[in-house]
């Protein structure tokens, strides 16, 4: 499943590039809008990068199941004699590899724009590495629930953004704490815990949501 989805992504590379450019541009707009005051930029950097990552990851959610829904592949997944939650997990992993990992890799470059110190950049990457899979996992539930609904894109953001808040708080908090010298360890541990929890439970919820959407 992961391999199939990744092959599909590779044949639609423009999609990944769009998400990445969205992320870069949103983050780059802030220094232009706020002005080149280094101290302010440094303070808002973690929040800005994280909010942009949330939005970018949310933008790509629509595609997670929509194409499969339209061409009937989703029906085949449901009637396949394999646990649907596992298939869902496979799709989520592929989604994260295509949309989350590029963000993680791009983040330090953007952090530099904001004058983040080296340890801050490292923690920013780690926090995104732990946090973006949670975004994909939780977002999958929203994407599954809004399948075939008119105006699904807006609905997804209403459903999913509130659930993203904890990830945002601890993700940006980890970087803040590191930069201010407190150490971001606690925040990162909580992010890791969220990842484990989301990894265990959201595939089942998504599978149930898919069954409802296709009924």
């Amino acid at each position, binding site marked *: 499943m992961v391999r*199939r989805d990744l*092959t*599909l992504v590779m*044949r*639609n590379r423009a999609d990944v590039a769009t998400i990445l450019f969205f992320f870069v541009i949103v983050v780059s707009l802030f220094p232009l809008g706020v002005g080149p005051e280094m101290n302010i930029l440094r303070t808002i950097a973690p929040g800005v990068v994280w909010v942009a990552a949330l939005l970018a990851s949310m933008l790509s959610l629509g595609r997670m199941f929509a194409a499969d829904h*339209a*061409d*009937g*592949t989703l*029906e*085949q*997944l*449901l*009637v*396949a*004699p*394999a*646990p649907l939650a596992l*298939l869902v997990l496979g799709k989520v992993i592929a989604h994260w590899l295509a949309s989350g990992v590029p963000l993680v890799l791009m983040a330090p470059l953007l952090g530099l724009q904001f004058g983040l110190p080296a340890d801050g950049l490292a923690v920013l990457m780690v926090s995104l590495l732990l946090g973006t899979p949670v975004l994909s996992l939780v977002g999958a539930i929203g994407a599954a629930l809004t399948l075939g609904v008119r105006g699904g894109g807006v609905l997804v953001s209403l459903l999913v953004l509130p659930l993203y808040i904890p990830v945002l708080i601890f993700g940006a908090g980890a970087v803040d704490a590191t930069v201010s010298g407190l150490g971001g360890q606690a925040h990162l541990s909580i992010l890791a815990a969220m990842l484990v929890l989301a990894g265990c439970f959201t595939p089942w919820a998504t599978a149930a949501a898919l069954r409802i959407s*296709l*009924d």
Partner: protein
Amino acid sequence: MLEAVDLECVRGDRRLFAGVGLTVAPGELLHVRGPNGSGKTTLLRMLCGLVKPVAGEVRWAGRPARELGDGFLALLTYVGHHNAIKDELTGPENLLVHARLCGAPDDAATLSAALERLGMKAYGRVPCKVLSAGQKRRTALARLLISRSPLWILDEPFNALDVGAVATLQQAIQGHLQRDGMVVLTTHQDVPIDGAVKTLHMGA
């Protein structure tokens, strides 16, 4: 043996059908007939467990299919209205994904033999988006040729196919029935199939 008792389906606040019962024994074909909108596709999706009946249940060998779960799904191959063909993948890649998903034989020889029988071998290297509707349908139907499941559920399988492909599919269905397989299909075309053919007329 596939059995359905007293199935009822409600869509929105409209009752699509109620009290639908059917049995399909090994070696039998059930032809579901009815005008457009009479609920043929929904009935088929219900048999696959994609739609939950408001009342009644689907049974396999006397046990509720819902209880059997994946055990029941392993016994059926469903080709729906949509082809479930990925435009970006080639025919063999599409078939391979399906074979892996369903635990059907997935070696290259079996797959290419299935595609060859449906006349799709020459298109093995092109992405499916350049294929015509009929060619996509053929690629989707190649699933039946590699399937080892006893129950085939086919929604309008002859749609978009040319005469040659209809004949091939007809042979495949007959072969399946001779091996004690079961087929449930909907079609508006009159395609003669030798053997035990039952008809179910849907409402309206």
